[in-house]
């Protein structure tokens, strides 16, 4: 597959589309921040419009990258962060519409802006990528996509957990006014967080189940570091859900768990990434001046 395939869709490169996406998410974040600072209820229409525009640009950017690399673009840290942000936004469209949680759009655009801008701002993360990581096997590709999609769910869980902690703090400290007044109720946030945890865990379990089939056939095909970190993250989320359902991990502790586990999941990407095979230059390395 030629890596120079960059002039599709209005002549913009994959990174150009992804920059546009990041800027749209950033505008959503700035609009939301401006509304909060003014103490005004947010206009969901404007923020959602920018999120939708960003999402569209990101889909195009990932599509161009996918065409260039001949598969799901999950070959380096840059692509993984982009895919995680994309997953979180995809989930937001379902969760936001279903549960209509106030401020979730603002927090989601904040997370997406952070992940995409940071990934774009560090060229080293996209200087090289691993080739043929799926070995031409669509099941392995599904395994990777499911795993990253579960990270998107956990990203949203981290957001709802963070919102829960803010709301909880405002109520306990008896300062429910100001920007806090626009947050959803703690009951609703707790409810949606439990559901997201269940959904994320189910996706990750499915991903690991698909991967396990191939791992059992050839145990040497999977790097032990990757296996260790992935299973550890999965187990941590499973334990969190078990403790929540048993009424042990509740309220603030459950909120902190949602935030901390996602931070751990993100940090685990580095040792996993570093432990893999020798990379080759990424399409961006040739096509996008940085």
């Amino acid at each position: 597959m030629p890596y120079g395939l960059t002039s599709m869709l209005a002549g913009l490169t994959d990174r150009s589309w992804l920059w546009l996406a990041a800027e749209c998410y950033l505008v959503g974040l700035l609009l939301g921040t401006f509304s909060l600072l003014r103490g005004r209820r947010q206009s969901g229409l404007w923020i959602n419009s920018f999120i939708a525009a960003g999402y569209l640009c990101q889909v195009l950017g990932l599509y161009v990258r996918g065409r260039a690399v001949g598969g799901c673009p999950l070959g380096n840290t840059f692509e993984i962060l982009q895919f995680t942000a994309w997953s979180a936004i995809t989930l937001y469209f379902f969760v936001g519409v279903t549960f209509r949680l106030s401020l979730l759009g603002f927090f989601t655009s904040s997370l997406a802006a952070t992940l995409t801008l940071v990934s774009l701002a560090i060229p080293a993360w996209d200087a090289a990528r691993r080739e043929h990581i799926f070995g031409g096997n669509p099941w392995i590709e599904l395994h990777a996509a499911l795993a990253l999609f579960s990270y998107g769910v956990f990203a949203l869980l981290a957001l709802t957990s963070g919102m829960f902690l803010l709301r909880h703090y405002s109520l306990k400290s008896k300062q429910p006014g100001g920007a806090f007044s626009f947050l959803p109720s703690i009951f609703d946030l707790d409810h949606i967080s439990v559901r997201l945890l269940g959904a994320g865990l189910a996706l990750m379990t499915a991903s690991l189940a698909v991967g396990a089939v191939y791992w059992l056939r050839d145990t040497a095909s999977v790097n032990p570091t990757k296996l260790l970190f992935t299973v550890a993250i999965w187990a941590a989320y499973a334990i969190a859900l078990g403790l929540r359902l048993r009424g042990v991990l509740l309220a603030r502790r459950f909120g902190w768990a949602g935030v901390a586990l996602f931070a751990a999941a993100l940090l685990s990407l580095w040792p996993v990434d570093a432990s893999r095979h020798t990379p080759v230059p990424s399409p961006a390395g040739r096509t996008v001046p940085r």
Partner: protein
Amino acid sequence: MSGECLFVLGATHHTAPLAVRERLSLGAGAADALRAELAGLAGLREFTVVSTCNRIEFYGVAADASVAAAVQRAFCVRQNFSTAEFEQFRLSLSGPGVLQHLLEVTSGLDSQMLGETEIFGQVKEAYGLAQANGHTGAVLNRVFQKAFQAAKHVRTTTAITEGQVSVANVAVELAGNIFGSLAEARILLLGAGEIGEKTAKAFQSRGAATLSVASRRLERAMELAETLGAFALPFWLMPVKLADFDIVVCATSAPDAVVSRPAVEAAMRRRPARPLFFIDLALPRDVDASVAERENVFLYNLDDLARIADENRAAREAELGKCRALLAERTAALWRQIEPRLQAGPGVRGAADHRTEPV
């Protein structure tokens, strides 16, 4: 010089004390009779009567300024109130001042509870009645419709309606912050006093699932429960049943705390994942303050609620200047539209433009 004049005449909580407003208050029958009388008043082209617990106001379009005095006389005679005394408490405006006043009234800026939205419905109802009876015409129709638009604009572009300003409503709002919808919230009212009853009613008006009343005197609890359409609960059962409730409104006159930490601990062991919200309106306090340290338990006392209400009130007051400026712009624009109509008078506007047909 205007062919007709636009005026407002009446008394409000700004101009008249409660005792006077009580005497000026129009009952339903008296209001109907007065409207019928005003409909036949010579020179009164259009009118609307806005009557609430805090104001009685007559908005009118008249052939000349003397008609307002005739409206005043008709009202005072019907209320058996001397005209001279009425003039001490009177609100009387004409021209663009009427527009600014109506826009402020409709937006809740002139209300006793700044920013309240009930007045919007009351003005709309008064206008609807006048329109249905054919008492309004081209001028008042435009004025009232623009007033409703302006009120909506102020509500959506400023924070004048943000935050509750009464203790009972602050408590209900806090419950919403904890539980979201109150449709599944079970409320327990401890004590059968007035403030507790008011708060319980506020919860009922927001659609709380169930309400139970517990009082040391069971017969009093049963009496209040019947009034509120609630359940009565023997007081001694309260600690055992605590886990069955989401929101506990405490308003007893007990000298010591009636809700202890061990009772709350026991309740939370039975419902660890579901928050429990105590609203302690009693003095001395009914709830052991240390229960607030427990995870998923929220405790607000009378001082907390009053402070939040005060903060909200101050925040609304801070918006007042901005709201008035917004309304002043709209008043000026509206006056530019209706002034030519007033100057033209009904002869030029045409008979069909005078008063709307009764619906």
